[in-house]
C-alpha cells in the first residue's frame, strides 16, 4: 500500500505539514476558520521532530502487524480491509492510551479536547494524496508504494 515517507535531508522543519493536517481534518477545511474559530480544533496527526539542523515529519506507518490494533481494548483501532490503512473509530475509543503505550513510532497523539480519544493519521481518506504531502513546499514528504 502507499504510505507517506519523509526525506530527512531536505526537510526544512517548517511544520506546514502539521498546519495542513489540521486544516484537512477540520470541519470547514479552511485554514483561517480552522485555526481561528473552529472548536474543537483537530490535533495535527503528523509531527515534525527536530534536533539542531535535523528534522523530519513522522506519522502513522500503517504497520503490517499493527501493535496498536493488537493492544486496542475496545476494538476502536482497525484495519480498513486486508491491505488498507489503519483507522480509528472515535465513537468506540475511550482514551485508555494502550495504543500510545505500544506504537513504536510514537505516532498516536492523545486528544483530550472534548473526550479522551486517540488521534492518528488516516492518510486523508478519499483524497488523492495526503494533505501533508500535497502541501510540503520542499517535497520532503512523498506518498508511494514501497511494498
Amino acid at each position: 500500500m502507499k504510505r507517506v515517507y519523509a526525506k530527512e535531508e531536505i526537510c526544512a522543519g517548517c511544520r506546514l505539514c502539521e498546519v495542513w493536517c489540521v486544516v484537512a481534518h477540520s470541519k470547514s477545511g479552511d485554514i483561517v476558520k480552522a485555526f481561528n474559530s473552529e472548536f474543537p480544533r483537530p490535533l495535527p496527526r503528523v509531527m515534525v521532530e527536530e534536533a539542531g539542523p535535523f528534522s523530519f515529519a513522522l506519522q502513522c506507518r500503517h504497520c503490517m502487524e499493527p501493535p496498536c490494533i493488537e493492544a486496542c481494548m475496545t476494538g476502536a483501532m482497525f484495519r480498513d480491509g486486508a491491505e488498507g490503512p489503519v483507522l480509528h473509530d472515535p465513537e468506540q475509543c475511550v482514551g485508555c492510551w494502550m495504543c500510545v503505550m505500544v506504537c513504536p513510532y510514537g505516532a498516536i497523539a492523545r486528544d483530550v479536547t472534548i473526550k479522551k480519544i486517540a488521534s492518528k493519521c488516516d492518510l486523508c481518506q478519499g483524497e488523492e494524496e495526503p494533505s501533508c504531502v500535497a502541501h510540503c513546499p520542499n517535497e520532503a514528504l512523498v506518498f508511494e508504494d514501497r511494498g
Partner: protein
Amino acid sequence: MKYVIIGNSAAAVGCVEGIRKYDSDGEILLVSKEPYATYSRPLISYYLAGQVDARHMGYRPASFYKTHRVTTLLGSEAVGLDTKDKSVRLSDGRTVAYDKLLIATGGVPFVPPIEGSDAEGVMTFTTWDDAKRLKRLVPRLKKVVILGGGLIGIKAMEGLQAHGTDITVVELMDRILGLVLDKTATSFLERKLKEEGVHLVKETTIKKIHKDNAGRAVGVTLENGRELATDQVIIAIGVRPNIGLVKDSPVETNRGIVVDYFMRTSEADVYAAGDVAEADDILHHEPRVIPILPNAYKQGKVAGSSMTGNEIEYPGGMVMNSVEVGGIPAISAGIMNPPDDEGYEVKRLIDRKNGVYRKMVIRDNRLVGFILIGAIDRAGIYTGLIREGVNISPFKNHLTDLDFGVICFPKDLRTYKISNVYM
C-alpha cells in the same frame, strides 16, 4: 477442518482473525460460558461508571461472527476435555468434536480463604455481569471496601468513584499498583486519591468479614486490628489462569497451560492463548503468565495462524500497562523495580511541580523497563526499544527527556525507522 475455540475474549477473537487470515472455509465453533457476544473486559469499569453504555461494550462489531463465519455457543461451559477422542464435553451434556482446539478460558479471580467471605455483599470484579450487579447495587451502597490495590481493585474503585461512593482500598503492599509502578510513581497517584477522598489502608489485609443475622456483610476486621464498617466487599487480589478444563487431561500445566512459540500445548492439536497460557516473557527469558489484553490478542492470533498450518512464531510478551488514576495518566512496561545488586542502571526525571515522573531501567545498554507518570506521550517508542533490544548507549542521556523521540536515534537507525514499515 473443524476449529473449536473455548472462550470469547481477546485471545478467542485473535484466534478467529488468525484462522480467517489463512483459512476461509474451515468450520469455526466458539463456545463461551458468558452469554454475551465478545465484549471488552477492561471496559467493565467504564460501564460501572456510566461512561460507556451497553451498545459500546463490544470488542468487535455485532457483525463479527457473521463476517468471520463463526458458529457460537454462548452461555455454554466447556467442562471436560478428551484429547484421545478429540472432543470437548459441555455443561449441558453435549460433546463437540474438534480437529484443532484453542483453550482461551482466561483467568478466574483469586479469593483467599477469609472467614465470612461467603457473606452476601462479597463479590469479585472481572466480568460484565459483575459490573451489572454492582451498578444495580450502587445507589444503595454507602461504604465499599475493596481488597486489593492492584489494577482490578483500582479499576473497580474508579467505576465506583463516579457514583460518589465512600471507598476504602485495602492493600497488602506498601503502595497501590505495586506490581506495575514503583513507590515514587504511586506517591503521585496516592496523593491525588487522598484529595479525592478515597481511603487507602496499606500493608494489611482483611482477616474477617462480619455478617448480620441475614448473612449480609456489614464490616471487616483487618490484620492490623482495625475495623471498618461496609455494605459491600470487593475482592480484587488478582486472577489465576482458569485451567479447570484441562485438570483431568494430559495437557501440561504449570501456573498456566504450558505452550510453545506456536501456542501448542503438550497435546497434539490443542492450543492455548491469553490469560490461561504461560508463554514466553522476552525479559525474563522464560514462560510466564502475563494476563494483559495485548498479549492475549497476539497469542490468539498466533494460535489461529498455527492451527491452519501457517506457523508464525509468538514474538514473546512483556508486562505493560496503561492506567489513569484520578486523571493522572500512567504507563509502564517491562522491569520497573529492578533488584539493587544485579547490574541494572536507572535513570530518573522527577518534577513534582508539574506532576511528571519518568524512570528508565537499563541492563547491558538495553532498555528493559520504564515508568511514565503525567507525561506519557510517545511511550510506545520505549516499548519498541525494549522489544527490539536496541543498544541505547548513543542516546542514553536523553531517554528521560520530555521531547525524547525518533530524532534522538543514531542516523542509520532513524533512517531505517522512518523509511521502513514495522512488521
